[in-house]
């Protein structure tokens, strides 16, 4: 009898110990768009500094890759939150996916074009004429550049378009003048490399010419928002706090240390330059609150995709953008 009583009490103790801890933390998966690097400094920092734990969330931040798609993972239940670019979101909505955008990370699209200063600076869109412009066929840059051509009334034969992929050889060999890069990652590396060879560069930024194509944003499923609004709010507040902290110059050394642990690619100097570039894209002004959703930019993005026949019909993007206070 005593033995049974002892076993029962032991079991009760274990159970009671477990239950509160289960109630205290919720296990979530957060799928990023690309590999761990400085572009996702805020996501890494939020995880490393325990921002999620502080609100009772146990979040596994998983890096992305060409094969992994956060929207697919949301639908299949492999992820609870994710990062996707606006074109991915709009395409998914066009095909009936039930997702919502809860924050816009990049206020300025990092998708820009790099070119050498030995050619005149592109001050107006007409200056693109006669240039050899690199485009990733099927990629966002193709959509953006086509919009630019349409906006500027540039006919296809007035420019040379070269299909590009991952290696920069045609740009290094000066076969292609204007090369698509992510301003805050490859852009930094290329600029640095060319500087060592005594060459300087400009960056062509479509948003300077009124072409705003929204980039990476935080998403979740409509069901998640509907059934667990408190978890969504907690997750987002922790994430955005993490980003604010990561973008604060005062925390730069700490942020770089956290990113270095995950980023196998760049060296310290490059990483620091990339962080600076990322900062200007995520939080272009001190007053800007990270995660603010730019509705006009989203609408413009949807229009661009409709015009380029990337989607069959309007998706009414405004109804899927949820600005959580």
């Amino acid at each position, binding site marked *: 009898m005593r033995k049974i009583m002892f076993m029962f009490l032991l079991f009760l103790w274990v159970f009671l110990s477990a239950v509160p801890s289960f109630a205290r933390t919720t296990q979530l998966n957060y799928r990023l768009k690309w590999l761990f690097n400085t572009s996702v400094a805020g996501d890494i920092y939020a995880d490393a500094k325990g921002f999620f734990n502080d609100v009772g969330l146990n979040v596994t931040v998983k890096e992305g890759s*060409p*094969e992994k*798609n956060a*929207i*697919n993972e949301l*639908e*299949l239940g492999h992820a609870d939150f994710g990062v996707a670019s606006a074109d*991915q979101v709009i*395409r*998914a909505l066009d*095909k*009936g*996916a*039930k997702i919502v955008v809860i924050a816009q990370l990049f206020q300025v699209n990092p998708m820009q074009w790099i070119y050498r200063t030995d050619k005149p600076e592109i001050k107006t869109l007409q200056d693109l004429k006669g240039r050899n412009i690199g485009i*990733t*066929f*099927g*990629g966002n840059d193709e959509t953006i550049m086509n919009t630019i051509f349409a906006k500027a009334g540039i006919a296809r034969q007035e420019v040379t378009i070269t*299909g590009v*992929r*991952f*290696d920069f*050889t045609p740009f290094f060999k000066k076969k292609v003048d204007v090369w698509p890069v992510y301003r805050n990652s490859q852009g930094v590396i290329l600029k640095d490399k060319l500087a060592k060879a005594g060459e300087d560069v400009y960056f062509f930024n479509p948003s300077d010419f009124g072409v705003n194509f929204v980039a990476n944003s935080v998403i979740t499923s409509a069901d998640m928002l509907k059934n667990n609004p408190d978890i969504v709010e907690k997750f987002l507040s922790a994430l955005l706090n993490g980003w604010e902290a990561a973008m604060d110059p005062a925390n730069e050394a700490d942020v770089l240390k956290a990113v270095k642990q995950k980023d196998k690619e760049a060296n310290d100097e490059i990483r620091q330059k990339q962080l600076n570039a990322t900062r200007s894209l995520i939080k272009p002004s001190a007053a800007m609150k990270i995660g603010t959703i730019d509705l006009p930019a989203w609408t413009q993005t949807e229009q661009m995709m409709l015009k380029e026949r*990337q989607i069959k019909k309007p998706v009414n993007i405004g109804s899927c953008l949820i600005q959580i206070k």
Partner: protein
Amino acid sequence: MLFRRIYQFLIVYSVAIAFLWMIKMGLSLSDYVIPGFSLVVETAGQVFKEYFFDVINTLSVAVLGQALSIVLAFTVGISGRKSSWIGSFIKVTAYNIQAYPIVALAPIIFILLGDGFIPRLMIASMICYFPLLLSVLGIMATPVENIEHFYIVTGRMRWQLEVKIRAFENLSKLTTVISGSATLAMAGTIVGEFIAANAGIGYSIRIALYQSDLAKILVALFMIGIIISIYQGILETLGEQMKSKWSISNGGEVL
């Protein structure tokens, strides 16, 4: 043989796609994750012509690559058939290299040689070269004692006759390995294009992947399957015709 290949492929494809749709229905997935029937049909209507020419483009590279590798494999296989040191060296090298995933070299080849026809041709021929070489080496290095004996003892044996005897006696094996290397060449070319080219169906699949457009990928897979089934069917039919022209099965008509 040709029709059998085609309807075999159609059965496999239909089963696979039905399985996908079962998962779609079961998990209530949107068209973004798994496209529905109408979306696949609509997409097929949009990209069919473009993908057809892409597949033909890829197939032509694969066929040429395979032809090149056949010529090369026979040349090297015939030269290396003796058990001299060069013959052994060729055998060992072929055994080791054939285990290596040649498509992993695709990015390097494209970086060095740029986009275009030649690097795709190189990848296609490298993919099927080593297995072909090993088969040819094995065949050419194995004497057919019962036939060769007369020519050897009467001093009539020449290397051309020796090669002809050994090739003829192993015609079945040769046609099988050539037919099999067709799939290898096609698969390798597609993967090479996927990784690093700017033309062909592999490249089109990569673009579809960028856009997370599974409908386009399914259409591309269908096109690839149909065309490769036809190609293999043609190869097998040619092989059978060649075999029946050059040999009559044992136990033929007794006179």
